[in-house]
């Protein structure tokens, strides 16, 4: 059994391309070309060179000694927080911008929630000299002023999404509408493993460099390629997809997916899609999705802006449904306390998204000889205001 995408764009029953006919030519062009172009040696060479010299890859696999001692197991952290722009997001935008250029596109659009993907997109557009428009919910623009400023410095235009709840899902709707209105010259860089096929697969492939490096680095450090556990937080699920990718079909490696419980799974203020979602269609993909009984998409909540998406990517929906991955939800409170704990114990201030993943250490028991890899997907600079408010720093 494979947990990867099949040739029709599905992970089990999830995925596909549920898109209006107006988007069909754009998505079809991408579907027909993405594997071909990304397999070309010139593409690979450019992608690898930029990941190395611009992003700063490979990112270290760091043995967290104090943490390991405390939890009596071997804990390694994959240091995506050291990537240029502060998180794993740029692995994907580098890949997609090269692809966009190969397809002859001149205008780039993107959606963003907290602004991390927006910054990563604005960055690669500056790098390549391409026009960049980032859609961002009006509410998020107010909440994430520093990232809005970064995008502007990088030359991007930030357009407020004024419809619906004025957050990430609405920014995504607006980006899709822009693409419908500009089908010829425009390329849409989606930031997570969501959207119509081939996006979930394409983004997972660009992020798969994370697990590729984990294998190489573990071999060097431990004499074995495969850890016992890989752990990552899941909003849409791009850092998780990259962390799991090369271990998906090796069931000796246990997969843990950490979702944001917000104020608590049953509180009505949560983003724990696996617990609260039902099968539905959002942004062109059939997946698990938080919605009313009438099929209206509901607004999720998490203190971490990067995890409050009402769905998960179809790969993750399938990992949940099949039981291949264990899903755990972590509250705001647990995640915030880990933000502080990791800072004090290891000298690493994590993004609040990433802090959720660490809280698994309190929820599960590991054996002393287990090798546990946690993806530290981003650094906490962007969250400083939230930390300040929360801890009255």
């Amino acid at each position: 059994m494979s947990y990867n995408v099949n040739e029709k764009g599905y992970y089990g029953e999830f995925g596909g391309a549920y898109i209006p006919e107006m988007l069909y030519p754009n998505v079809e062009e991408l579907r027909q070309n993405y594997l071909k172009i990304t397999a070309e040696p010139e593409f690979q060479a450019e992608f690898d060179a930029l990941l190395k010299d611009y992003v700063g890859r490979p990112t270290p696999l760091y043995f967290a000694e104090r943490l390991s001692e405390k939890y009596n197991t071997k804990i390694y952290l994959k240091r995506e927080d050291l990537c240029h722009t502060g998180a794993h997001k740029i692995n994907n935008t580098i890949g997609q911008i090269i692809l966009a250029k190969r397809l002859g596109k001149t205008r780039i659009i993107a959606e963003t929630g907290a602004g991390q993907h927006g910054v990563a997109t604005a960055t690669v557009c500056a790098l390549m000299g391409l026009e960049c428009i980032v859609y961002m919910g009006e509410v998020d623009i107010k909440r994430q002023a520093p990232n809005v400023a970064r995008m502007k410095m990088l030359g991007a235009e930030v357009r407020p999404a004024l419809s619906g709840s004025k957050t990430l899902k609405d920014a995504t709707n607006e980006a899709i509408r822009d693409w419908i209105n500009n089908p010829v010259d425009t390329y849409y860089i989606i930031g997570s493993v969501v959207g119509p096929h081939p996006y979930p697969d394409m983004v997972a492939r660009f992020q798969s460099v994370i697990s590729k490096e984990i294998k190489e680095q573990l071999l060097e450090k431990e004499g074995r390629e495969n850890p016992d556990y890989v752990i990552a937080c899941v909003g849409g699920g791009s850092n998780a997809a990259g962390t799991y990718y090369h271990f998906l079909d090796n069931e000796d490696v246990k997969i843990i997916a950490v979702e944001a419980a917000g104020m608590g799974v049953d509180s009505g203020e949560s983003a724990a899609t696996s617990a609260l979602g039902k099968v539905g269609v959002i942004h062109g993909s059939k997946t698990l999705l938080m919605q009313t009984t009438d099929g209206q998409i509901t607004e999720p909540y998490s203190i971490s802006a990067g995890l409050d998406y009402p769905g998960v990517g179809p790969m993750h929906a399938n990992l949940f449904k099949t039981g291949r991955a264990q899903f755990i939800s972590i509250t705001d409170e647990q995640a915030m306390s880990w933000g502080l704990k990791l800072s004090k114990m290891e000298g690493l201030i994590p993004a609040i998204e990433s802090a959720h993943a660490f809280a698994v250490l309190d929820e599960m028991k590991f054996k002393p000889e287990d090798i546990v890899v946690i993806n530290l997907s981003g650094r906490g600079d962007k969250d400083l205001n939230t930390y300040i408010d929360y801890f009255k720093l």
Partner: protein
Amino acid sequence: MNRINQKLKEGKKILSIYFSAGYPNLNDTVQIIHDLEKNGVDMIEIGLPFSDPLADGPTIQASSTQALHNGMTTQVLFDQLKDIRKTVSIPLIIMGYFNPMLQYGIENFCKKCAEIGIDGLIIPDLPVDVYAEEFKETFEKYGLKNIFLITPQTTDERIHFIDSVSDGFIYMVSSASVTGSQSGFGSIQEDYFKRIATMNLNNPQVIGFGINNKETFNLATQFAKGAIIGSAFIQYLTENGIGKIEKFVKAIR
């Protein structure tokens, strides 16, 4: 014979109107349908509101959002329409996004439509290949016509495929856009209308998106069997309420 097929056999050009069910007020649905038929509209698309309508522009999305606030749901719409066929004889189509239908249950949804006397569905985010593989049989069992969209970017090959799985009409999107974003047609649209008109398709074509007055209606129907007005009608309801529908329709023809 299905009312859609029958209507399209008539010699005249078809005027079809879209509105969002539950807008401006929750219980306006039946009154709007009555007034549209009484004033000579040939076909009606009843919009089932959705929280995230990807293919719609701000006018229709705002009306959907308001309708949802007003309390519109799939079940409420079905309840409002249960006696509609006692008084209304023109074709009625439900236009909505796939997710609310999926949650209602596709078979249940189709069954309910058949009971009410709905003639067809337009589901912009249900791709034609998924429909053909998974849902065509169910739709046909309940006598529902599924209407597909084509755009200026749709290839001839795909248009022929869509024609082959359609039985009713083909919804020609006038330009690459979401609803309500164009006004008037240029030479690009005319060339596209002409190209489609000469393809000898089995299904008649009805043009939508960008039709907002008599002039655009007349131009579109030079090349196609009919035309659909959506955003302009919603805008009119926003400004005038539901009491002056006659004036809107008479201004078109």
